[in-house]
Every structure is written in C-alpha cells, then in structure tokens.
C-alpha cells in the first residue's frame, strides 16, 4: 500500500483517499466539524486545515500576511504557508502533511474555533449536546483562550420546530451543512437548506414542508453541535450519566448496529444511536429504529401470571409445568419467535425436540410492513433468519397453519415465545392450555393461561441474524426488571420443573449447546467474533 507522512508518521492510504480519510482509518483524528465519512465533502468549517509540504523541487506556496507584533503593536509583514483542508485534499504518494506539529495549523485552528464560538450562546447547561459536543472538545484542545470580540452576539430564532421529531436552534448552529447533505444524499429528500450569509446564515426547511422523511433523527445525529436536537431526547437525560451497550436494533430484519444508551442509576434506557458497521447499516439508522428503544420499558410484563392472577415467578414456572405435564407431545405446538434471539429460540427448540418430543414447530412475529431502499426492511422481525437457521431441517409452520391445526383439533396445548403475531389469532382461544414467555403485551398474551415474563433485548445478551444472514450480538444494557428473566433461563427452569436435564446457568452454556446448530459465527461465543461486521453467511 502506498504511504504518506502525517506529522512524521507513515500512514498507508488507498488511491483516492483524502488526508482525513486515511488518517481516520489509521486511528488519527484530524479535528473536523463538517466532514462526515458517510457524506460528501463540503470543506466549509475549515477546522481540518493542514500544512502540506511542496512537491519535490518546487517552492512552497507562501502567502504574504501582516502580523501584529505583540510588543510594539505594529503590523509587520510576514509569510505563512497556504493551508489546505484535509477533508478535500487527496493524498499522493510521499506527501508530507503536518497537522499537530505545525504552528501555522494550530494558529489556524485557534482562529477557526474562535470564530465559531463568536456568536455562540452560553447554552451548555441547558443544551442536550453538552458532553458530546465538538465545540467543547475542540475549544479545550485547540483554543483554550478567551475570544477578543466583546460585542453583543448575533441573535437568531431558538427552538424552531423543524418537524415532528426535530427542533432547531439557530444560535448554536455552525452551518456545517451536514444535515443538509444528509437529507439530500442519504435520505434523498432535500428538505433542508442554508439561508442568508455570514453570521446571519442559518438552516431552513423548504417553505411548505416539514422535516418529516423517514430518517429525520439522523440529522440530529450528524449535527456536531447542539443545533439540532431530537424532541424525543430533549431534556430527558444528561449524556455523561449514560452508558452505552452495543445492541442491535429490533425494528426490522436489517439489524442495524446501535448503541443503546442507558442510565445505570435508574436502569432506564434513554436512546438509540447508530453504531458504525459498513456491512450492515453504514453510519445510519431509520427513525423507527431510533425510537424503537422505548419499547424496552413499554407494555411490559414483569410478573408471572396464571390466568388473570399475578403470581411469583416460581409459582408461574410450576403452573406452566403443570399445564404441560402428561400431555401427548403430538398435541403440543411449539411457537418460536422471530422477535427473540437465537439463544432463546434454541432453548425452546431444545425443550421441544430433545425433551418434550414435539415436532410441531411454528414461528410467530410481527406482520410485515413497509421497507425502503435505504435501510428499512419489510420484515419487521430482527431474527427471522436466525429461527430459520435453527430449524433448517424442518422449517416451522406459520401462525395461520397453527390456527388451522388448532381448529382441526390436532393441537390442544402450546408453548409460545413472544406475543407478536402477523395474523388475527382468535383461534387460540380453543387451546386447552397456552404457556407464553413474553416480555411484551401483544395479541398472543390475551390467550395465555400461564405467562412468564421474559427479558427484553435490552435486558439480555443475545444473537440476532439479519436478513442477509449476518449473526450479530446485542449486549445487555440494563438489568431485567423485577421478575423478568432471559427467556432461555425461563425455558431451562420450565424444563427442570418438568424433570428434564436443562441445567444451563449462563449464556455461554446455551451457546456451547447450540454451537453445532447455529453455524460457526456463534460457536466461538466470543463477543468480538459475533459482532464483527464480517460473517456474511450468504
């Protein structure tokens, strides 16, 4: 690979790379606001200016400037090199680039930083970006001085509603145009633009329009400062109290990599953030997925129920075992769930195949919805492929088939995972007993005779296989609420109660047992391997 020099360090690059890209790949962060790896280059913030040595045998391009002598106060002529934006400049073999090591660069960055903060309001205490704001980080790193202007700053409208999800603050905006470029290039709905010039310019929505396409929350995500804030997250939490779990979005079969941000003090999930994975979601997530985090605490079951009665988990498991004891396995249906992780499904499958001896497998899940050609998939279940892979020998029947079998009287008992269903499930009322393991309320829950509270994806680590067959691990964020437990744990407890040897204690035990079934990616059981954006099993 060809290399170039950045601050006397040899950096490899691929032909066509810009300086900032090559440095980014090498793990060196050249300070920047407007550049984003997933967007086109605008080179308008001027924060990434670097000094580039002249080609061999050529003089450096120097600018004539006047510099103020701090002692006399007089202006004296001086020279300085012409600096170039690292985000726009393509790398050439043997190029010598100075970033941190050039005094001209640090002077320029100081000046850019001073300019960007010139009209910035004193908003940090009430700004949601505080704590993850580039202006804060770069001020300390690259300026560290007070500004010289003491005039009243320019005032612009604050808290403008851009659409149902986004609020804009013109005073905090540095007009890097990342949001404008995102709407145009990724969401393909150029609804934002820049108005006015100089210190009066601001971002506006097209007249007669609202910022309401399917990826509006990404504009907030790409915003390097606190100008765009999400209605959903505004004033809800301070980011320095949040911790991030590397999760996988549960919204559809795309399986976007996300960070699930939670507060460890009250065990509450606050938001989703996209996690870079070039093989799956690149840098983005859709609005539905971004807001899907809220399900972690909505419509939850956190207690076991027998009929309508709330009971202890122990009693619930006993009741579930009682409902299944001595029943002809041919009459028991096992309903796997595309909403649950492979581990959960594997546990239920093991209970069915190895212990109960029932081969009546069915799969439940959410009904299909709309997809698009950016990220959204029509299959709204995160693990359909995972279940298919688990039952590769005998594909599970659909919910309609289950209902038919029930109507025909072939099935009298059922154990089901998850409460979502793609069709009307009134027919389930004919079941003798339905044992349901589900974190959420849903269509199936109404027919459950025994309900055991399962943990959500936010409360249990698990593997999900997306539509392309990539197995990805989603980490646990918060602890399971009240009596909720990971579904595989509940199934193992149920199995033990029925007298079977299901002695899994840890997730790794389940993974070890499922290794031959679920392919090599999960077999290793290591986080790194599972979540690495490789393993395209197609």
């Amino acid at each position: 690979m060809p290399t170039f020099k950045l601050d006397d360090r040899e950096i490899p690059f691929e032909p066509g790379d810009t300086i900032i890209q090559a440095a980014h790949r090498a793990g060196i962060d050249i300070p920047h606001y407007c550049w984003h790896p997933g967007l086109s280059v605008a080179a308008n913030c001027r924060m990434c200016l670097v000094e580039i040595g002249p080609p061999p045998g050529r003089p450096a391009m120097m600018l004539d400037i006047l510099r103020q002598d701090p002692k006399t106060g007089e202006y004296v002529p001086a020279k300085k090199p012409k600096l170039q934006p690292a985000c726009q400049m393509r790398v050439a073999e043997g190029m010598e680039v100075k970033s941190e090591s050039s005094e001209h660069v640090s002077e320029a960055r100081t000046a850019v930083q001073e300019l960007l903060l010139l009209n910035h309001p004193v908003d940090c205490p009430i700004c949601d970006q505080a704590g993850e704001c580039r202006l804060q980080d770069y001020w300390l790193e690259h300026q560290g001085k007070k500004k010289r202007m003491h005039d009243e700053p320019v005032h612009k409208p604050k808290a403008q509603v851009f659409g149902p999800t986004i609020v804009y603050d013109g005073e905090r905006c540095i007009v890097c145009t990342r949001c404008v470029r995102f709407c145009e290039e990724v969401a393909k709905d150029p609804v934002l633009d820049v108005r006015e010039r100089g210190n009066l310019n601001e971002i506006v929505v097209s007249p007669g329009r609202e910022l309401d396409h399917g990826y509006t929350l990404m504009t907030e995500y790409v915003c390097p400062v606190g100008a765009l804030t999400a209605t959903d997250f505004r004033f809800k939490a301070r980011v320095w109290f949040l911790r991030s779990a590397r999760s996988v979005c549960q919204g559809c079969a795309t399986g976007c990599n996300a960070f699930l941000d939670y507060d460890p003090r009250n065990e509450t999930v606050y938001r989703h953030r996209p996690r870079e994975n070039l093989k799956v979601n690149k840098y983005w997530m859709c609005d539905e997925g971004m807001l899907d985090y809220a399900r972690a605490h909505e419509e939850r079951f956190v207690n076991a129920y027998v009929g309508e009665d709330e009971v202890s988990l122990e009693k619930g498991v006993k009741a579930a075992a009682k409902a299944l004891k001595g029943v002809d396995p041919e009459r028991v249906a096992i309903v796997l769930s595309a909403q649950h992780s492979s581990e959960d499904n594997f546990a239920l499958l093991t209970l069915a195949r190895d212990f109960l001896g029932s081969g009546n497998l069915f799969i439940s899940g959410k009904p299909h919805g709309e997809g698009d050609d950016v990220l959204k998939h029509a299959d709204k279940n995160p693990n359909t492929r995972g279940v298919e892979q688990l039952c590769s020998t005998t594909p599970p029947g659909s919910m309609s088939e289950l209902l038919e079998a029930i109507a025909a009287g072939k099935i009298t008992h059922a154990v089901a995972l998850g409460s979502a269903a793609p069709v009307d499930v009134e027919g389930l009322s004919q079941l003798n007993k339905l044992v349901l393991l589900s974190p959420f309320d849903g269509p199936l829950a109404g027919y459950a005779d025994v309900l055991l509270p399962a943990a959500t994806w936010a409360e249990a680590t698990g593997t999900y296989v997306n539509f392309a067959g990539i197995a990805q691990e989603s980490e646990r964020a918060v602890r399971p609420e009240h009596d909720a437990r990971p579904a595989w744990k509940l199934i193992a407890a149920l199995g033990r109660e029925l007298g079977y040897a299901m002695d899994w204690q840890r997730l790794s035990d389940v993974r070890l047992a499922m290794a031959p079934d679920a392919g090599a990616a999960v077999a290793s059981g290591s986080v790194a391997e599972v979540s690495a954006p490789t393993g395209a099993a197609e």
Partner: protein
Amino acid sequence: MEPLDIDLDEAELDIPAEPALLNVGPAHPAMHGTVKIVMELSGETILRADVQVGYLHRGFEKMCERGTWSQVFPYVDRCNYVSPMLNNVGFALACEKMLGIEVPKRCQHYRVILGELARMSDHLTCTGAMAMELGAFTPFLWMIKGREMIWDLMEDETGARLTHSFGRVGGMAKPPTPHFKEHAAAVKDQVLKILDEAQALLLGNRIFLDRLDGVGIVSPEDAISLGWTGPCLRASGVPYDVRKAAPYMTYGEYDFEVPVGTAGDCFDRFIIRFQELKQSARIIDQALAMMDDEGPINVEDPRIILPPKEEVYSTIEGTIQHFKIVMEGLKIPAGEVYSYTEGGNGELGFYLVSDGSGTPYRVRIRPPCFLVTAGLEKVITGEMMSDVVPCFGSLNMIGGECDR
C-alpha cells in the same frame, strides 16, 4: 452494706497469674486515634504488645479511584485532620509533578505559610495533648488557644476551620485575603508567646520531666529500619527533613534549622516539636517578607484551572472550560510518580498512577503515622504500663492518616 465477696477465699478466685493480658482501646480516652493495644503484662511491665489499627479505615484510596483528580483533595484533608493544609499541598505537588508544571512564586510562598501554620497547629495539638495526658491540663488549654488562632486564620483564608479542601492542582482555590500578611504575622507572634509560657510551665516541672526522660528510647538504627520520618526520627538523632534533604517549592530559599534529638526518648520527641514550632515561625517570617502582594496565584492553563465564576456565567469559553474540568476532570498524562513532602509527622508521600483519564488509577498515600505507629510495639515493650501514655502521645498517631 456488707461486701459481696466477704466469704470468698482469695485462693479460690481464679485470677490469672502472670502474664496478665490487658486490652487497651480502641476507645480509651488516652488514645489519640482509635487504636487498640493488647498487652501481656508481668506486674506492670509490658512483656509483649500487639498494636491493632484500622478502626478509622474509610477506604480513601478506593474512593479516590472513583472521582476526578480534584476530588481527591477532600479525602487527603481528612487524612491528617490536624494539619490538612500540608496534605492538600502535598497532593497538589504530586499532581503538578506529573503534569510538569510549577505554580507561581507567590502561590509557593502562600502554600508554605499556610503549610507551616498547619504544622504549628499539628505540633501544638500533639505537645498540648501529651501534657494533658500526663496531668497538665493548663498547657493544653493554652496551646489549644494558640491552635484556635491558627484555625481562625485558616477560616478567614479558606472558609473552613479544619477540612479546608483549599489546594488545587495548579494553584489554590482562592488568592490570599488582603489582610493575610498582617493576620499571619500576628497569629505567629501570639503562638510564640503562648509557647514560651507553656515551656516555662512544663520544662520546670519535675513530675512531667520524670515521666518523659529516658522512657521509650528508640535508637537511630531502629528508627530508620522502622521507616520513621519527621520529628520522631529526628528525635533519635537522624537529621532527615524533606524540606532540607529535597527542598520543594521555596523551602530552599529560607534559612531554618532542623532540630535533632540525642537520646531518642519521649522527652526528645516532645521537645523537638517545641523547637520545630519556632523554626516554623522563622520560615513564616521569611516567607511573608518574600511573598508578593500582587500577582497570579494559579497557573494559566485552561486544561487545569477553573475559570473565574463570573466568566462561567457570561461567556461560552468560560462555560466550556468549567464544564470540561468539572465533568471530565483535568487530565493527567499516563504514568506514575512518587512525590514526597514533609508533613506534620514526617514524610508524606503520594504514589500516583494515572491512565491518562480524568480519574486517578491509583492513589497511594504514604502516611508517616502508619509507620510511626508500627514502631509503637517496639517502643513500649519492656516499659511500664504507665509509660504507654507518654510513649503513644509522643508518637502523635493520627488515626485518619494511619488508617485512611
């Protein structure tokens, strides 16, 4: 009323013969800190002793690993609660050594003056309490009066009498008050006067001297091997004082002496503190004369020092600076350092390990008291039961520092 044991024959009583086992503490009133001594006695002679500490252990070193570097100051305050300013300065110097910065001269003098005043309060407490424990209550009250004056000055300067948390990495929390110099000079004079009176009262007292003289002798070799530092080591005749041996801040610029004992007994440890009080007064005199009335107290680095409050509320730069330092803490480059200063009881060391983040990775406080107390067993073994009190008093164990 008849005595209950009227019918008892003494021979029937199961009184253990020698050696008798005696527990002293952990709440014995003559114990400075919370310490327990289990003694094996033959008559009144101590055959063996086991000194047990830890009753005041609060897990400071663990807690230090859970905050920012600046949040360590309140903990070091509560280590030696008779001279917290010395600990504050000691920790600040350790951090500054890692950062490679030096505070302005004015601040160095200021730190020296406050530190020496704290040392005076430490020695006043120790010697006063020692006299009290041997029955001389009056000198104790006088000396505490002197300490009170020092604490009033501290309150004036820092806002708190005892746990100031006044040190900062890169300076002090506040500049000196306008009347600081007059105030400090006046306090110093008053304390010296009290000292002369107390000395006249104590050093002419036969009973007092007899209880100290020749009691609890520690040879210089033993003192060194035990890791003793400070007044206890110097009483044994070893002239080791960090201020002279490795001058830090402006200590190299002052003219002062290191008093050294000859016998290494309780009297030496007592009188050494008296002499050190006078030396501290000398240092304060010189530092007051050298200290500028105007000038910066803190280093000028936005990565280390908090901005003035009025800027925090009115400018975005001030807000950012304040936010970064409070929320993320000042960053200390990864590495390790051992920094040592002369605390009230000897070499106060800080062994710091940083992983480059805003939170300390390890803060090891090398407490002089811990090692001095470790030597108590050696000091009292073979002495009489009644000598425990002067011996223990002369070592000046500070529970907070010993147990952390």
